[in-house]
């Protein structure tokens, strides 16, 4: 699997570490249900999936990789920074 790091260019998967679903968002509220959802519940989709990935053996940037969990095809990569910003807007 190859991931195109916005900072470093295309690198193979061995340079990255994964941290699961990026679509879940850390709640600002103190609502227990929202927090439970965030920490424990996952859609775990078969198909298109936004995933946190760190270029840990490279520039160390956290990225959000949109990938098909069945074919492993990568559709796109953005930095976690930009992902967070656009999400705030949305």
């Amino acid at each position, binding site marked *: 699997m190859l991931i195109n790091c916005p*900072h*470093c260019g295309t*690198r*193979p998967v*061995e340079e990255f570490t994964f941290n699961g679903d990026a679509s879940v968002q850390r709640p600002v509220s103190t609502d227990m249900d929202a927090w439970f959802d965030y920490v424990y519940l996952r859609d775990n989709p078969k198909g298109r999936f936004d995933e946190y990935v760190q270029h840990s*053996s*490279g*520039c*160390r*940037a956290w990225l959000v990789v949109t990938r098909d969990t069945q074919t492993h095809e990568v559709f796109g990569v953005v930095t976690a920074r930009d992902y967070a910003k656009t999400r705030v807007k949305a």
Partner: protein
Amino acid sequence: MPDLFTRISALADLAIQGRFGADKGVPGVTLSLRTPSCIVTVIARKGKAKAVADALKAMRGAVVQWAGPDQYFVLEKPYDELSKKLSGIASCSDQSHGRIIIRIEGPKVRQVLAKGSPVDFHDSEFAIGKSALTQMAHVGVHVTRIGKDAFELSVFRGFSESFWEWLTEQAEEFGYQVV
């Protein structure tokens, strides 16, 4: 500012001069240690990326290497001077003793690097002056191309012995020289 105290490189005992590995005429690669007076990590503060880039471009006598998003290794400029010059726009951290820089050059340099890193160092992909962060032999490496067939490999001090052992073993089949 010159060092008041004598620095003992972590590779002092290993990087012994001489010719090693296969004896096929010209050595495939030549290895040497580069010990800059200073290495400083410079990270731009929020919204100051461009200001920092410009300031570094303007800075005379500094060797500036890309080291991540809005982040640089600046060589040959003391930490104190840099943090003053860049105060308010960047955060500086002294790494002068934290990293070991190995220079590797010669006709087989790319074959040797290819045994460690997935980065494509082909002329068409990796211009002179370009830096990359990658891994070789389970060790994080900062690579900079400094000439046609010449590269610098910068690793954390603590890994340098292991890394040197690995690197020289990869160079054996071509024969290598340590200077």
